């Protein structure tokens, strides 16, 4: 599990390089500087900021959904998605992500609590605010007997605020943006899963939006398709559009997200910037040495906790110790240090720590 996580991590770094994750990785110093500003600012900006471009794009408070069977799908949820953010909405399957998204879009009525999209209450003002919101909910769904273009025309015709005279041009522009223009006349039935997924994203691009909500946009896609969708999301967000993208895989979205919310069995167990998530994990020091016994003794003497030794590597929780001091103490103690590293905590491990592992999470 963790090896798979680091594997995608490395691949992602090579593939994207300059993007969000790279910038966030900078160092502890910028982490400390950015933490209070963006991190704690995000929920704090909610009540204080005016409902303009500066206000949060999505706020829910006490949002709860109990289905008729008595199942509590979403429990007292307090989302705060800052304007302009790419918000990764994470959680294992069945943790309540889709139910939450359906409530955000007015498809499901909350049992308790409130939703505010772009400063407007939902479902109360859904007719007013939803034209400014593009969405993909729980996979693509279209008329199989219609072409891709006819499907988009159908969706556009349902929008009473859309201008019919520009419909043809807007539809072709949306198809072009997701790379489906050449397949516009093909029936939806004949589309591949990736094409279907992209057509669903195209419905969100039929007109300029301020907020895009994508529920599992990479679900069922091959790595190539996943990369395409990721690039598309990044491109959408460059215009200052707020994006909420849900996934059950952190690795799929961590390269593009500025913020994450993590759900587990209907509850939000973490919300904040990626750096804040990282800072939750305790950093470890890893020493490569031929004398693990002596190294362990030195680390114990330094008061480090959770010391593990295996395969010529000794590791321990770094806590507030400086790596320089540890290195010096080791050398002074006569331990040959072949290498010393303080790796960044693995986000995947943190994520799994938050959501639980395996089958125990499906409540």
């Amino acid at each position, binding site marked *: 599990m963790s090896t798979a996580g680091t594997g995608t991590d490395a691949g992602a770094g090579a593939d994207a390089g300059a993007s969000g994750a790279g910038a966030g990785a900078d160092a502890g110093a910028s982490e400390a500087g950015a933490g209070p500003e963006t991190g704690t600012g995000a929920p704090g900006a909610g009540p204080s900021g005016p409902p303009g471009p500066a206000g949060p794009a999505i706020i829910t408070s006490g949002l709860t959904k109990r289905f008729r069977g008595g199942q509590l799908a979403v429990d007292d949820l307090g989302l705060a998605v800052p304007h302009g953010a790419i918000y990764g909405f994470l959680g294992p399957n069945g943790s309540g992500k889709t139910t939450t998204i359906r409530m955000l879009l007015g498809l499901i009525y909350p049992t308790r609590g409130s939703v505010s999209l772009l400063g407007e209450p939902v479902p109360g003002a*859904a007719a007013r605010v939803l034209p400014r919101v593009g969405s993909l909910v729980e996979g693509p*769904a*279209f008329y199989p*007997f219609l072409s891709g273009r006819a499907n988009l025309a159908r969706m556009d*015709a*349902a929008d*009473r605020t*859309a201008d*019919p005279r520009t419909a043809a041009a807007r539809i072709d522009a949306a198809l072009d943006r997701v790379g489906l223009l050449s397949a516009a006349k093909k029936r939806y039935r004949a589309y591949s899963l990736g094409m279907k997924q992209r057509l669903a994203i195209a419905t969100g691009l039929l007109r300029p939006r301020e907020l895009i909500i994508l529920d599992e946009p990479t679900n069922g896609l091959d790595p190539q398709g996943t990369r395409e969708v990721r690039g598309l999301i990044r491109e959408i967000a460059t215009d200052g559009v707020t994006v909420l993208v849900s996934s059950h895989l952190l690795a799929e979205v961590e390269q593009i997200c500025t913020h994450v919310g993590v759900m587990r069995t209907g509850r939000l167990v973490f919300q904040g910037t990626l750096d804040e998530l990282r800072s939750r994990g305790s950093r470890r020091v890893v020493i490569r040495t031929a004398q693990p016994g002596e190294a362990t003794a030195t680390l114990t003497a330094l008061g480090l906790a959770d010391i593990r030794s295996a395969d010529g590597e000794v590791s321990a929780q770094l806590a507030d110790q400086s790596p320089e001091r540890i290195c010096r103490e080791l050398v002074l103690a006569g331990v040959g240090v072949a290498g010393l590293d303080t790796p960044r905590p693995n986000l995947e491990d943190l994520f799994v720590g938050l959501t639980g592992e395996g089958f125990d999470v499906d409540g």
Partner: protein
Amino acid sequence: MSTAEATAVPPAGRTGPGGQLARTPGAVPGWLRLLRSELRLVFRRLRNLALLALLAALPVLLGIALRLAAPRGGGGGDAGSSFISQLAGNGVFLAFIAITLMIALVLPLAVAVVSGDSVAGEAGLGTLRYLLTVPAGRARLLAAKYAAIVVFGLSACCVVVAASLATGAVLFPIGPVTLLSGNTVPLGQGLLRVLFVTLYVAAAMAALGAIGLAISTFTEHPIGAIATVLVLAVVSEIADNIPQFAVVHPYLPSHWWLFFDSLLRTPIATSDLLHGLLSFGIYVAIFCSIAWARFTSTDVTA
């Protein structure tokens, strides 16, 4: 954009949800666009077109069968009040025969398919959630769906009548129409009565369509909704033929369907017709309300 807005001073009425988007006079109103899209969906669906083809083919087959069975020539209409005996003298009567036979099952089938599929079909495909997040508006979408059902029902009746008249004209003599009450009216007036019959039957189908629409909001399985509508129609027709249920007969949805024959008498029995239309209207009101109440309050989880 700015020039377009300059010419578009008057439309203050359409400030609703899309306030920021000024509407110019030439633009198609949103509701008409949705209705057009809805109609396109219904009338381009191969299954629905096949139903209409069936509705057109049956009167042709019926005409041929009756032509082969009927004695040639045949004089006036003194043979009784049955349509079939009239047919030999006038092809127009094929329309009444066809309607009478097809209103029992085939016309309700066509309406059941389209109305049962209306909401349940969208839910089953999942397109419902996309339409609602567009947002189409729940009540607005429902209104467009019902309008399309009514148009389809009317089209179905028109197809039957048109096919019958065409077949009747080819296979039988056409001329002044002898009514069921024995008197004869000119062909023009006879055709006008055919038109009224068509509209009356279309109203009956609109009532059945409202029932179908309501049922359709309760499920995401279109086949289940279609079957339920059809079963309801058939049960109603059977109950209508059991004398012991006479008390409830006037309240059955199908009870007034065949009363279109009042239009074929002189004077026209308007009280029966009005009773029928009133019954259809009440069914439409009740079941559209049920559909609205259900559809605007339910969670869309499909």
